[in-house]
């Protein structure tokens, strides 16, 4: 066990630092309040790709530098020190393109991997549907063969909770191709051109005020059979690749203890100074050990990866810990602010109203990418090997599964 870089790692870090210092934007480059543009994001991604800092672990044949997972981690640590523009490529590079690399045709691999890696094309993932909820396999958006015998498919239906649909170039799409067989067996995966006029993207107005997600409507969208990813009816198996990547990618584990301590330092409770309040201090300790525990759990995963082992299931615990924790942190901070906690104006609220913002975003975190309840099920089933929930929809034709609607 060693927290210091090996000589090779130290060398890699030094090079990455030098490159970033020469190429990354600096704090002073930013006009206060100005949001980085999509063009800046694409330019930064292209620069990284050219220097071998995009998709560091991808093999050379796919345009990656073929680096190690520690190198990837080291670069991420160093990059985080700079005010680099936002990264709209995560879903494409983390989920969609790996799906194509695993299950797509050779032609698709050649066509899509490079441009995605260089930030030239952005991808979104279209699995969730309004009636599906936690059950991604319940997709009802239909694809039927065109009647003209061309082999083309005609797509109709609606997807929901699609991040980045409004600026994506392509999307991967899970579709119902056969409603007469059981749920998991009648699905097929496709890629689609998001700029097709048969696709309509409508932003979802979230309770937090933002609208990072979209509803996406398909009306007689026609796609070639060559846009199919994997065999007809094999879509669920293909989607597993995508979803596993999603659940590992989300997660995180922010540690808010510092800000809470900063807040508490200036606040009085009935019993005296907020920061001296034992109830708050015990909570800070509880939060701290959870955030630290997640941080070191990630390092354990990273170590397993670097040794060529499959990481243990510990990777799945990030979000189930972090999301409720953030909600609790925010609620506790507001209680400490007392009457004042209701103010969400960053001009007046302590720490630019960060806890008020967290309170309003936390419910979304507890749901997106798998609810608290689904994630516990996953841990119980995949990690501990406990039985699946009783399934009433297993050997039933999809069209006959009860929906309550």
């Amino acid at each position, binding site marked *: 066990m060693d927290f210091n870089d090996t000589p090779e790692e130290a060398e890699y870090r030094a090079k990455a630092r030098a490159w970033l210092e020469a190429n990354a934007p600096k704090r002073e480059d930013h006009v206060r309040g100005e949001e980085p543009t999509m063009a800046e994001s694409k330019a930064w991604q292209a620069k990284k790709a050219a220097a071998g800092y995009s998709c560091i672990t991808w093999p050379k044949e796919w345009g990656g530098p073929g680096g190690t997972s520690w190198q990837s981690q080291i670069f991420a640590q160093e990059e985080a020190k700079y005010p680099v523009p936002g990264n709209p490529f995560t879903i494409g590079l983390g989920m969609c393109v790996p799906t194509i690399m695993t299950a797509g045709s050779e032609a698709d691999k050649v066509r899509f991997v490079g441009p995605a890696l260089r930030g030239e094309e952005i991808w979104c993932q279209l699995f969730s549907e309004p009636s599906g909820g936690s059950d991604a396999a319940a997709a009802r958006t239909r694809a039927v063969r065109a009647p003209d015998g061309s082999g083309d498919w005609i797509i109709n239906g609606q997807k*929901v909770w699609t991040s980045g649909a409004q600026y994506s170039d392509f999307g991967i799409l899970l579709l119902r191709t056969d409603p007469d067989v059981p749920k998991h067996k009648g699905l097929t995966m496709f890629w689609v051109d998001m700029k097709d006029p048969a696709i309509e993207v409508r932003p979802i107005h979230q309770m937090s005020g933002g609208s990072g997600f979209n509803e996406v409507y398909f009306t007689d969208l026609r796609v070639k059979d060559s846009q199919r990813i994997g065999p007809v009816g094999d879509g669920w198996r293909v989607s597993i690749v995508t979803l596993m990547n999603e659940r590992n990618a989300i997660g995180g584990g922010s540690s808010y203890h510092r800000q809470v301590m900063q807040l508490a330092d200036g606040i009085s409770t009935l019993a005296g100074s907020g920061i001296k309040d034992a109830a708050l201090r015990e909570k800070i300790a509880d939060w701290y050990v959870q955030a630290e525990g997640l941080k070191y759990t990630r390092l354990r995963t990273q170590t397993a990866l670097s040794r060529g082992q499959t990481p243990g299931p510990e990777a799945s615990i990030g979000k189930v810990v972090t999301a409720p924790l953030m909600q609790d942190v925010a609620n506790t901070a507001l*209680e400490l602010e007392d009457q004042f*906690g209701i103010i969400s104006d960053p001009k007046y609220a302590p720490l630019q109203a960060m806890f*008020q913002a967290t309170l309003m975003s936390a419910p979304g975190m507890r749901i997106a990418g798998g609810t608290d309840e689904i994630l516990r099920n996953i841990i119980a089933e995949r990690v501990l090997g406990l039985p699946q929930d009783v399934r*009433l929809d297993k050997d039933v034709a999809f069209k006959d599964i*009860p929906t309550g609607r």
Partner: protein
Amino acid sequence: MNFDFSDDQKFLKSEARKFLDAHCSTATVRGVLDNVDRSYDEPLWKAVAAQGWMGTAIPEEHGGLGLGRMELCVIAEELGRALAPIPFASTVYGLAEAVLIAGSPAQKSALLPRIAAGELIGALATSEGPGVVSAGSIKASVADGKLTGEKLPVTDGDVAGVAVVLAKEAGQVNAYLVDLTGAGVTRETLQTLDPSRGAARLTFKGAAAERLGGAGEGLDIIEQVLNRMAVLLAFEQVGGADRALEMAKDYALNRYAFGRPIGSYQAIKHKLADMYVKNELARSNAYFGAWALDTDAPELPLAAASARVSACEASWYAAKENLQTHGGIGFTWEMDCHLFYRRAQQLGLVAGGAKQWKERLVTQLERRNAA
């Protein structure tokens, strides 16, 4: 011995429910929430006034109905259930109770009839910054009947005609009645977690202030008001929490996942059972608070703290877990879950957070144990 509302009180409750079902849908709430220029629903306020609710506990001699506070509790539960976007609490549990507790005969005659008639909106202006209000936190000051300072957040301060303001004079904390429409008062509407209720930042520069109660009694008056408010707000919280549980239950029965209602999964069943348990405990604690309030029992400070702590817990849990039960759709602006989530925070903080009420509760226990 008898631990339930009377038949008359239950009739009042069912009438209030019918009235609010007709006059205060969630569309009414959204009418205020979605419109930055509106701090409350004026037609609803007038309709409620026409029912005489503002005067429920105001004596008949001052234009009220002269009923007990038990009846006010009944109405509070229904207002909370309906998420009514009106300045009822500030006016009726706040200003009216402050005047009833400490007002001179002249102050009572001047203000109570206007409150009972729905002509006057009130507010409590105690906070000036993050943390608990105390003698140390108050910088606003009065000299020669003129108030100088700043108060925020003042719930309903943007629409109130009169506020009870805590300020210092000659080193003592006093309560003052201040006409917010008068000279020397500036109001700025604040952005808050629950835009269906208004709040303001008030700046006073030589505003006319008339003392309420004796010199040095300011904090004591506010504590008495808060004890009463705590019980009444607990009923609002219980009303909202019960409705959140109903929403969650309805959704769990009708939403299917993996071929069966999500309400058939224990993760959801047990979540809703926990919600129910917290709501029942909160209701029972609120009932005891109602009794203590109505009879002005010596137990009131302890009963009020218990009612508030229990109601804050139930209200927050029901609001957040109702949203969670709804999944993704619950996180959208269009679904009503966030209205309850926002209001749970508003009600949980407006009379001071649960944290300070827990401290008060244990202080009361210590006193009782020592006695």
